[in-house]
């Protein structure tokens, strides 16, 4: 209990010292709305490296903020989105891309939906081909039973 004020003091220092990092902040936004839109689109594709599966656009982590600012600086200098992305990949690897690039290592991943769907379709067709085409005709015995049933009581069911 006695710890509490100290903790709170720690909070305040942290809050004042390091800028409270949050998903895109007003001070980050670029003046030119077209460039800002490009920066947003790019940051939605990039992973916050220290979070779990969050894009830097959504992340509160300070590192994500740094990368958001870096992207905006580079875009302001006239670089295209592709160049900025390529630069970040060269620095952090494919790990930073939320959408993995199509290459030999990820081929199986990208093709998996088509493969599974194809296998499923093939299995369905196979099962269909193996199944009898139509209901086999009734045997003489069954015909007799049917006649007995329908002849005896037509209201039963």
């Amino acid at each position, binding site marked *: *209990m006695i*710890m*509490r004020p100290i*903790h*709170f003091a*720690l*909070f305040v220092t942290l*809050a004042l010292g390091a800028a*409270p990092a*949050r*998903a*895109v*902040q*007003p*001070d980050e*936004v670029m003046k030119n709305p077209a460039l800002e839109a490009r920066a947003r689109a790019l940051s939605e*594709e990039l*992973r916050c490296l220290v979070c*779990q*599966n*969050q*894009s830097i656009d*959504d992340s*509160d982590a300070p590192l994500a903020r740094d990368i958001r600012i870096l992207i905006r600086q580079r875009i302001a200098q006239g670089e295209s989105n592709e160049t900025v992305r390529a630069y970040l990949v060269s620095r952090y*690897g*494919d*790990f*930073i*891309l*939320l*959408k*993995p690039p199509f290459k030999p*290592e*990820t081929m*199986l*991943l990208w093709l*998996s*939906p088509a493969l*599974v*769907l194809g296998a*499923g*379709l093939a299995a*369905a067709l196979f099962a*269909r081909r193996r*199944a*009898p085409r*139509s*209901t086999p005709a009734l045997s003489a015995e069954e015909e007799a039973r049917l006649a007995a049933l329908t002849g005896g009581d037509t209201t039963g*069911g």
Partner: protein
Amino acid sequence: MIVEIGHFALFLALGAALAQTVVPFWGARVGDAGLMGVGRSAALTQLLLIAIAFAALVNAHLTSDFSVLNVAENSHSAVPAIYKISGVWGNHEGSMLLWVLILAVFGALVALFGRALPRVLRADALAVQGLISVAFLAFILLTSNPFERLMPAPFEGRDLNPILQDPGLAIHPPLLYLGYVGFSIVYSFAAAALIEGRIDAAWARFVRPFTLVAWSFLTLGIAAGSFWAYYTLGWGGFWFWDPVENASLMPWLAGTAFVHSVAVMEKRDALKVWTIFLAILAFSFSLLGTFLVRSGVLTSVHAFASDPRRGVFILAILALFIFGSFALFAWRAPMLKQGGLFAPISREGALIVNNLLLTTSCATVLFGTLYPLALEQLTGEKITVGAPFFNLTCGALLLTACFVAPFGFSLAWKRGDLLAVAERLTVALVAGAVTAVLGAAWLSGGSVFAPLAAGLAIFVILGTLIEVVMRVRRPGLAPAVALKRALGLPLSFYGAALAHVGLGVTLLGLAGLGFGAETIATLHKGVPERVGPYSITLDWVGERVGPNYKEAATSMTVRSGAAVVAEIAPARRQFAARQMTTTEAGLATLNFGQVYVAIADPTPDGDVPARLYWKPLVTLIWLGAAAMALGGALSLADRRLRFGAAARAKAGGGSLAQPAQ
């Protein structure tokens, strides 16, 4: 003392579970009715014992008994009572105890309502259910004991993680577990049917209520989780394709496929092998989800390796139940008799397409979730599979499934007429297309997804409603007759219709996001800031103290033109015990849409940096999910499907139960 009683009860429960596994199984093999009957009493005893253990843990949390490690680590004397209770399952040990409690509840339901079932089937199903219980009780007692004591006891607990102190997350795990674990019954019955080598429509009729219960709860659980993420995480995201979310989505997808195929089996005695396969799959994914979330393998492969005890144990359970059941499947499935012929264009055919698309998306989620782990293990290369991958692949598959839904709902069993159905659905098709075109024009070159999803949503909703009307009304029919026809339709039909409409409604909510607006700005007192059709004014900034937190609070007014439409109070909460800050978004619901405001810490001169959103139709996402779950419940209320109805009808020689051969 109470804590020790709980611990002891858990050991006794393990004994009961062992008895439930061995005795009825043996009885079924030697044909001894007395031994088979033991399954029933063992299941009920087990439920009683686990309930005692669970109550003991709840009591420890409620009384803040910090001499119990689990309470000391996950509770705090100042936490409100509801979060003391939800703290029970807000941690690994407690949540596993909840898992086995729900497992025992489902086992007891079979014991109580399964009287009308064939004796051998019931005995085998209870035995399999018992075996699952044995595995998880052993897991809890050996690796995750929630009753461990702490010496000396601390004065104060370390508090429940603040982001878990929320009503949405208090009910999320129980709902989700009711879903996950509910599929265990389906699994047990599938295994029992395979052991016997016989399966029929009566089986489907008995399993279906359990499936619907599990599926409805899983739907609600996922919706509750996503709604929680939406209002808690501070920017209105509600689905991240995070591995933990994927872990809950996979059983849902497999379960949804199962709900559809079991309907085919019940009505038409077809797709037996496939239905059994899906039953095994749905629970396997539930187990996999439990493993992924509980072993820590997701946060990092290394975290898993540093304390592998739990992970390896769950992995062994996983291997036993998944490989065991698939081996049984491979061995026995060829013996199952196929029945119910149908043409490709028929309701059965459409449901097969639905099943293919759902299982493919399920497989895609599985691949996407595990691929990075596998690749890192094999090559050391780290990649990320994130939202853009899943949106592209699963998005396409699931949208296609949505498109098929109204066709499947309208096609006749056995042999359908696609042209006639398309003609019936013309109005819905045209309305959908017009919606999509208008949406695209409105966004003028924005995302393709939003207008497409909006059009599909309208098609699904209208298409379903058209079918309902067509079933009831024919030209020239008197209203009284039409009403009688409407009342004569089975509840399961209305349940399915409601679920499909719910699907459309959720899709509409998702589409609405594409039409939203976002403003990032620093708010000054009294200066309105626009977002979408509304303007938001900051009125007040200050500090407040809650029971176990302090918050930077604000109050803001939402206006449409000059008229005040809502007051909101976004805040930032600081929890001292864990040194964590949470965002309390300011939300105002306006015509199914929401104004959403999240703030950062106010500056010393009273300005507030904020993100303002206008999210049209966003609430429909969860309302649609609720409608889907309600559809499941409605279907459950169908008197033909009540527990045991199948066998009663069979005994009475009624026309409802179709004999197997």
